[in-house]
């Protein structure tokens, strides 16, 4: 058992009961800023637990962006699971110690932490005897499904739309029922899909193991080949996001680091980051699913060469990753953000926010609030909604913080009314002048 000077965090592996206990302990220590909930159950009935850290847990505050970390979707890739437990403890401890960075982060963001999307797989992997865990045992869920190949393959659809015309965002809009009735989807996958549809996540990271790199969309190659750089419309911001993680992890961003295994091909790695397709093609992954079905931008972080390293190494992994984990959350406060409302001040939900030159739109949430991550530059941002007149605004975006751009949209019927009034006025004037 490795204990540490970092108070309240013991760096050891947590089985399901211990994971639950650890999250409950965080909640008990910080009940005013945390809340535990579950997104559903695994195939064997374990809860998919999430701990939410925010200044008003349980509430979406209008204008406050939502963030998530998901770990251990491959049950034998264990470091992410543990880091997320340590992170929850760390956030609580630092908040109480008066750490201003953490306090501000928690007050301005709603942070959701799911240490394990595959608790069943983890139990299998953790039960393996001996120091060295198997490369495969515990990877998939209890039904033998690889969760990171189980999501609806929206990349395929997008690639077709790119050629033939069609949207490249929110491709799941009419598919909720199809998802619920799809027998091929694992319960864990379904749980996550509902989660993504229910909460207007803006930024996310998916934690894995087996290598050391921050990976970004698209994961699936366009032509179907094994390795091919497959950029998405937001390639620029994704590179920046991936770098914002890797650059704070000394091992990940070390340019002289040898590959994890002698014959590994890490030629696509740049500054500890890589495009997914350039590294190797992954269809049906959760990362791209986020980007193509919702507003959420997600990257995949590979945290360790060894998938299930010895317990004594966990403290070291925490030290290497804690700054990255915090810094990555902070990236959510970049680009532009604001509210889309009508002329009476009512929020317009599901309005489209489009950026000239980037063929990927986001939408406003139910309070009319939106967040659009962008690298620094000059942009024209347009808000539109059915029945309303679109408005375009010019904005100069710095590295951070996010620039507030609000929109008040006039509805078409309002405009019609105005025009009618104008016409009446003109007729009145004419008739008076000409004496009808």
């Amino acid at each position, binding site marked *: 058992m490795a204990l540490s000077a970092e108070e309240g965090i013991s760096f050891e592996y947590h089985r399901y009961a211990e994971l*639950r206990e650890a999250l409950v302990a965080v909640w008990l220590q910080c009940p005013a800023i945390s809340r535990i909930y579950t997104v559903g159950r695994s195939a064997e009935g374990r809860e998919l637990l999430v701990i939410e850290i925010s200044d008003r847990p349980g509430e979406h505050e209008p204008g406050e962006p939502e963030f998530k970390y998901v770990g251990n979707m491959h049950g034998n890739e264990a470091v992410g699971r543990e880091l997320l437990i340590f992170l929850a403890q760390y956030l609580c401890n630092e908040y109480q110690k008066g750490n201003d960075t953490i306090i501000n982060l928690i007050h301005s963001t709603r942070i959701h932490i799911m240490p394990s999307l595959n608790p069943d797989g983890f139990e299998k992997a953790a039960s393996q005897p001996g120091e060295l865990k198997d490369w495969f045992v515990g990877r998939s869920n209890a039904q033998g499904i690889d969760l990171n190949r189980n999501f609806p393959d929206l990349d395929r659809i997008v690639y077709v739309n790119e050629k033939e015309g069609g949207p490249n965002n929110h491709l799941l809009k009419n598919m909720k029922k199809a998802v619920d009735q799809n027998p091929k989807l694992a319960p864990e996958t379904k749980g996550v899909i509902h989660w993504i549809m229910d909460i207007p996540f803006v930024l996310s990271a998916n934690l894995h193991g087996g290598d050391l790199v921050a990976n970004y969309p698209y994961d699936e190659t366009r032509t179907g080949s094994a390795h091919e750089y497959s950029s998405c419309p937001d390639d620029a911001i994704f590179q920046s996001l991936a770098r914002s993680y890797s650059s704070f992890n000394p091992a990940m961003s070390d340019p002289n680091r040898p590959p994890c295994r002698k014959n590994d091909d890490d030629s696509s790695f740049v500054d500890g980051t890589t495009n997914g397709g350039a590294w190797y093609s992954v269809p049906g992954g959760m990362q791209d699913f986020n980007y193509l079905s919702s507003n959420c931008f997600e990257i995949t972080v590979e945290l360790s060469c060894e998938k299930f390293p010895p317990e004594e190494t966990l403290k070291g992994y925490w030290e290497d990753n804690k700054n990255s984990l915090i810094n990555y959350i902070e990236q959510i406060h970049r680009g532009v953000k604001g509210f889309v409302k009508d002329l009476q001040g009512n929020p317009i939900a599901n309005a489209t926010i489009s950026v000239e030159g980037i063929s990927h739109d986001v939408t406003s949430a139910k309070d009319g609030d939106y967040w659009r991550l962008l690298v620094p530059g000059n942009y024209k941002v347009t808000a539109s909604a059915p029945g309303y007149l679109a408005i375009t605004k010019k904005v100069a975006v710095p590295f951070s913080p996010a620039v507030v751009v609000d929109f008040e949209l006039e509805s078409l019927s309002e405009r019609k009314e105005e025009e009618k009034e104008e016409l009446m006025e003109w007729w009145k004037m004419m008739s008076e002048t000409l004496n009808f």
Partner: protein
Amino acid sequence: MGPGLGLAVALQVLALLASRGHGFPKPAGTDKAIHNRQLSVERPLEEQIAEAEADKNRKIAPTDDPDGLHQLDGTPLTAEDIVQKIAARIYEENDRGVFDKIVSKLLNLGLITESQAYTLEDEVAEVLQQLIANDAKNREKESEDFDYPASRADSDTKEKQQERMTPSKSDQDSFINGEVDDTLDNTWSSSNVLERRNELPSEDNFEDLQYFPNFYALLKSLNSETETKEKETLITIMKTLIDFVKMMVKYGTITPEEGVSYLENLDAMIAEQTKKKLENPSTKTRTKLTADKSSEEADSTKEEAAKMEKEYEFSKDSTKNEGQNAAGISEESRGKSEAYLEAIRKNIEWLKKHNKQGNKEDYDLSKLRDFIDQQADAYVDKGILDKEEADVIKRIYGSL
């Protein structure tokens, strides 16, 4: 049946009875004449208490006063009344804890000192013995309704009374500690009068238990040496239950017919519980019992229950906790309670510190406790917490 089984069943029955007992109206009054004869000298202590409480509670309507510090007609209680009421309450609930609750309240209000508390204890013990003895004496009068056997004590009532007026300290102590005193035993033993259901041999002292065929069967099954103590305890409990019912009948709270039917229902319930326990050989009933008891029960009971609940959980769902064995479990649940306690402590410390720095939100412990209780229950519903974990958490907050 296993050793724990019979006791568990009886304890559950007793607990149910105690909880149901609250629904029974309390005895309307006492026989003041007898009582005054016993306490010939008015003690300043009791007067002090009565006066102070009468002053404090003048505005409280009788129905609002849960501790019964007034007569039904609203006049304040005298010293003797108070001692009598306390004794009656202990008798009804068969729980010494009643006395502790009342005394600690008096101590906290500053109405008595510790040495006065000890004196009060003696006096209550005395009255309690009196209640039992009186009841045994009066049983003869009701023998037509119950057909209880004549007791030896009836013939030397006067002698007994004198004995009782100056009970020895050891008797009192042993009584207060829940053991049955000699007087009671004497009235139960001996008699050969067994008109009905004569398959019950008299040397087993089970005369009254003719009303409890199932209970009797349960006792019969406890034959090994290890189970003797348990057998004794069960008999004591049953006897107390019967006395309780008799008391109710004596005070006219229930009719004799109701008394009999109540006893018969009790026996039927024992049969049911026994059957259930046999079908479900786990420790579930034990944990249900702890839930029924008051929160002032010793912590070890709950920890014991926690351990057992964990064991039960493990046997029920081995997939959830592979690689753990029973030996490790109790350590773990202790460790878990400690972890939770530590976390709660940190929160309270932070709140105190935070509050000191003059933040606008006041640190309100009772509000926080309510919130935590609520959340803990919600978490149990959602499968995030076990029931027993939630209880641990509530208990920790309750003790703050």
